[in-house]
């Protein structure tokens, strides 16, 4: 029996079910297969809040969204075309973001009395007009799964845990994806659990065969591979890219990586990932708190390691005093802040960009340091690598900002050639003659990194003001001013060591959209849509928040209007206004969610039409 096959440019699918339904696994498998298939893609996992919720409730819903296609994909999608709902709560929570006319694949077993009640449905939405505008595919996945495993008489738990593979099998069939990658993965994962393996394989295929044999799905879809830059790709999440970027930097610099960290959502996975790689000589130290995390890293840096600490907003707040110390003793240190919604404990699992001011100014006294931000999941690799390069070359702490959206999101990544990564070449002095702990390199103004164990270079550092060159404690008024200026000038000189900023779009025009961090994808999409319509709109995305690249002022001056979208109440906008005295306009969303490209698109429209606030 043959069926219609439609070709489409891109599709967005949302897998949704109970925390226990393995939606993250299903999404990840679909993602890897799709990546291998050659589509460009972007994903957004969406876990429930930290505390487990009772099964079947709306707070318990776990979702995974993937946007993939044959063209460039920059966001996980504002809305989705297909919703896979394993129970009523999953439908309830996600329906509002499904496009009108979209498809819903439901596990009918997830819509019994209990489920409906927990989801807050007075009547079954499958049986009234709730879903009139959508094409609904009702499948009793639970039943079909147990049927497939009948003869194996397995523990009910195992049977229940396999039903997500049935859904996966169906989706693979509908979108013409190969089963092999998943089969391969399952074989490795469950080599020691033959019964689980057998169950999973059977159900996966059952899902495929069910779609193939029954008439239920009338259409299949083709999404041609994307014209990606040729090379070898892998899929990667932001936190994994961060961990690997740190590892790569340490290797390049021939330093031991020391991570002093205290677990905190959404940064913990960086610690988890690095802890796996002890064979790189990595030293991961789960400290008693954030203060011990950063101060142990400073101690390690003093001793000649690449000192790193990873955290989120509340943790960064606790590290501020120690960062002042790092500024004063001028040791290299990389601080990763995976931003989340604040203030205080806020919405720990939601994303935000509201730590920029804290990163720039959250220290007592004049304590400037470089601040760098990652703009996509894979860009976290570059951002931390660059942070480490600058930290080591300029003997300074560097704050690298990512956020929850980047940390958990993933995208295909053109695997970099390790040998071609920028060089990082620290050197430890060994010559006692003329050694002074605070003598400086003429170009970088960096002080020497003399480490314990070096005969003849014994010296003392600390948080009290230092005498220029000798580094002795010094209270002289003039010396203090000299040192404050020197520390500031050193950081300012980083601007000589970084590429000029480039805009994406015409060099002059009506609207320049300036962003930083994870707004990259949404801004890029919005700007592209406008440019497609022939509007003179451009995009400038800042990786370096401090110091700013030297040509920023000039670039800004080339556009009639400047729009600054941020996932906060307006922070970068303060910096640029004060620096360049330009009347930039902010677009702010503070909902713990990334921008939808559309939201930015509309705002640009307003500006083009000239009706600005």
């Amino acid at each position, binding site marked *: 029996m043959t069926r219609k096959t439609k070709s489409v440019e891109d599709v967005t699918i949302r897998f949704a079910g109970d925390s226990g339904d393995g939606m993250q696994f299903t999404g990840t498998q679909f993602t890897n297969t799709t990546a291998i298939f050659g589509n460009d893609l972007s994903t957004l996992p969406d876990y429930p809040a930290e505390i487990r919720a009772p099964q079947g409730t709306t707070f318990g819903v776990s979702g995974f969204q993937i946007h993939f296609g044959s063209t460039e994909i920059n966001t996980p999608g504002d809305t989705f075309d297909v919703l896979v709902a394993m129970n009523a709560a999953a439908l309830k929570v996600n329906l509002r973001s499904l496009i009108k006319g979209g498809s819903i694949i439901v596990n009918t077993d997830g819509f019994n009395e209990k489920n409906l009640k927990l989801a807050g449905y007075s009547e079954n939405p499958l049986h009234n007009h709730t879903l009139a505008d959508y094409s609904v595919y009702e499948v009793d996945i639970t039943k079909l799964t147990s049927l497939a495993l009948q003869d194996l008489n397995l523990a009910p738990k195992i049977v229940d845990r396999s039903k997500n593979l049935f859904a996966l099998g169906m989706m693979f069939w509908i979108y013409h994806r190969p089963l092999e990658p998943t089969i391969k993965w399952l074989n490795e994962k469950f080599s020691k659990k033959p019964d689980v393996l057998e169950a999973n394989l059977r159900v996966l295929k059952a899902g495929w065969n069910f779609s193939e044999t029954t008439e239920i799905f009338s259409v299949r879809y083709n999404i041609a591979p994307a014209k990606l830059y*040729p090379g070898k790709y892998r899929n990667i999440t932001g936190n994994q890219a961060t961990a690997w970027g740190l590892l790569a930097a340490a290797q390049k610099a*021939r330093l*031991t990586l*020391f991570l002093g960290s205290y677990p905190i959502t959404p940064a913990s996975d960086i610690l988890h990932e690095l802890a796996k790689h002890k064979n*790189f000589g990595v030293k991961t130290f789960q400290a008693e708190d954030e*203060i011990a995390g950063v101060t142990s890293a400073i*101690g390690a840096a003093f*001793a*000649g390691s690449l000192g790193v600490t990873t955290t989120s907003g509340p943790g960064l707040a606790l590290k501020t005093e120690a960062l*002042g110390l790092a500024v004063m003793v001028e040791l290299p240190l990389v601080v990763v802040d995976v931003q989340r919604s604040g203030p205080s404990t806020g919405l720990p699992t939601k994303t935000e960009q509201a730590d920029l001011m804290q990163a720039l100014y959250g220290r007592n006294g004049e304590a400037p340091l470089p601040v760098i931000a990652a703009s996509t999941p894979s860009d976290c690799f570059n951002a931390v690598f660059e942070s480490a390069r600058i930290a080591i070359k300029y003997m300074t702490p560097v704050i690298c900002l990512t956020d929850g959206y980047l940390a958990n999101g993933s995208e295909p990544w053109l695997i970099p050639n390790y040998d071609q990564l920028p060089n990082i070449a620290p050197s430890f002095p060994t010559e006692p003659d003329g050694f002074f702990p605070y003598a400086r390199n003429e170009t970088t103004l960096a002080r020497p990194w003399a480490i314990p164990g070096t005969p003849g270079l014994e010296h003392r550092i600390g948080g009290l003001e230092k005498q220029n060159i000798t580094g002795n404690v010094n209270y002289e008024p003039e010396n203090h001013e000299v040192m404050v200026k020197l520390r500031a000038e050193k950081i300012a000189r980083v601007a000589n060591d970084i590429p000029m900023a480039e805009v994406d779009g015409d060099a002059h025009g009506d609207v320049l959209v300036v962003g930083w961090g994870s707004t990259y994808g949404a801004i890029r999409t919005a700007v592209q849509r406008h440019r497609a319509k022939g509007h003179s709109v451009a995009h400038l995305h800042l990786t370096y928040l401090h110091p700013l690249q030297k040509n920023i002022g000039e670039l800004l001056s080339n556009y009639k209007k400047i729009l600054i979208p941020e996932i906060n109440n307006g922070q970068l906008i303060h910096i640029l206004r004060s620096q360049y005295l330009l009347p930039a306009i902010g677009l702010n969303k503070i909902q713990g969610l990334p921008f939808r490209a559309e939201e930015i698109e509309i705002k640009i429209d307003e500006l083009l039409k000239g009706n600005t606030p």
Partner: protein
Amino acid sequence: MTTLVDTIIEQAQTANPSNHSSKDFQSDQDVRWCPGCGDYSILAQAQRIMPDLGIPRHNIVFVSGIGCSSRFPYYMETYGFHSIHGRATAVASGVKLARPDLSVWVVTGDGDGMSIGGNHLIHLLRRNIDVNILLFNNQIYGLTKGQYSPTSEKGKVTKSTPYGSLDYPFNPVALALGAGATFVARTIDRDPKHLQQMLKRAGHHVGTSFVEVYQNCNVFNDGTFSHLTEKGTKDDYVVFLEHGKPLIFGKANDKGIRLSGFTPEVVSLTDGKYSANDLIIHNEHDTTLSFILANMTYNEFLPRPLGIFLDIARPSYDFEMQKQIEYAKRKRGEGDMSALLNSGETWIIQ
């Protein structure tokens, strides 16, 4: 990967360090404590015993927090880090974990180490990282000009407590033992010989060593320990703990400590009732005994124990960390970055 640090360490093997005399451990910075401060003696003793440890001074690091006591590293001709208030133990943990080859010492005060730094202290003791902690206990905040500290006696009148303090003091020895310390000792600034012994023993212990040093702050808390140091009184107010020996004290060694039930009491050795055999025999390796002796501390009817309360062997955290890394390398092979980047699911775009 042989790191740059490995190279430095290797080169240093060939160097012949000059640290034969205590002079070699005196830095060029002039010492800025008040005349008469107990810190001077502690500094002198530390400089005296350093050569005996036989560690080249370039492999020694002194880390401190903030306080008068924390000025210590500036005066030692070794590597030094005068960090921030309360964090010396955490900084030192990083130094030692990064460089197990170094001899790492922490100098802290009763405020720096027990007040703001209390948490890092107990966690370091729990982890048993091979760091030597010297807590200068003058029962006062010296540097900030005389507020009471967590070791000040209850009712203490200071600038911040004109009506007397309300808190019960910590007993640093008991706290350290409660935190799971493997080496705990107490000594005093005015007894150079004993101080030197304790510093040496601390230096030799593998794992975290904790030494409480009673120190006189003659400006803001003068004489707190004078009964433990003055000729006339010290023999009656101090009992020295010596492994395998009974707890005997008094001018004429005429008094001893025995246990009645679980409570230590002073007995006379002259009235024929008790002999040395009835007394507590000190055992540095007995955890329970260490608590009993620690509890003597604030008991006005008992002499103050000085010496080593506990010294037990347990693998240090830094050692275990090294082992784990070597194990990982054996098991998974020396890490290879390109291999890692290319591991797992990958695909080629033509």
